[in-house]
């Protein structure tokens, strides 16, 4: 199991022959994902695409009227274990002059679960907040 003298912080940092493979091919992430909550005040939709080898997440925030285009952010992708080629989750970040938004996403039974960690940097004393919402390829 331990092929090299790799450093590790816990058992799962090392490759195991006992891992059960699960997760998604990265290609399954590609496309447009719509928030299934019609009353959302968070991200309205997400576009995921490749640019070369990079996985990009393009987000649109829900506004009272229409959407705000956040632009694209490079995703760091994560598997369910150190030996898996499948994508289980991803992280990316959007930096605005007044706030930072860290996105942590994962897939579950065809649902993209998006957690956002929202931090304000404008001195407005707005509380940093967290949200968790669900996205589907609703045109599929």
């Amino acid at each position: 199991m331990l092929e090299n003298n790799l450093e590790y912080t816990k058992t799962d940092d090392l490759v195991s022959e006992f891992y059960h493979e699960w997760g998604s091919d990265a290609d399954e992430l590609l496309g447009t994902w719509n928030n299934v909550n019609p009353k959302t005040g968070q991200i309205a939709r997400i576009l995921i695409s490749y640019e070369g080898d990079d996985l990009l997440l393009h987000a649109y925030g829900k506004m009272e009227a229409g959407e705000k285009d956040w632009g694209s952010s490079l995703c760091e992708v994560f598997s369910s274990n150190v030996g898996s080629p499948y994508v289980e989750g991803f992280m990316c970040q959007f930096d605005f002059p007044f706030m930072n938004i860290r996105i942590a996403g994962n897939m579950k039974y065809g649902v993209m679960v998006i957690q956002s960690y929202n931090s304000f940097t404008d001195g407005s004393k707005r509380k940093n907040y967290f949200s968790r919402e669900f996205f589907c390829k609703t045109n599929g």
Partner: protein
Amino acid sequence: MKTAEKINTDELSYYLGTWRNSYDKARLIKEFTLFEKEGGIRMSLKNSTESFYQKPWPEGEVTAHAYTPESNDIVAFKAHFKLEDMEAFFAINENKGLLIIAGYLSFEEADPRGDCFVREFFYKV
């Protein structure tokens, strides 16, 4: 809800229509439709391609449930189906635009199939 009069019809209209399974390899249900009939709520459903149950389903009776006894804001449903060889109870709840079905499936005593449980996720089409 014990009576149709207690149902918030605005909220109910949001739920009426077809809901599709988010997972293309769904274990049981491809999609289902909630509709009103004869003063009540009914549910029809289609098996997924890979479903372990492939017989057609009759319409099921659906009951709406609110968040509190005093409110009429619908947050969940229960549905019951009596099939020829199986009985199904569905506990359905809403979570931020998804309807989540927890299904409890029971077969006849003499049936070699064991009672089982499914949990699937649906979005509004």
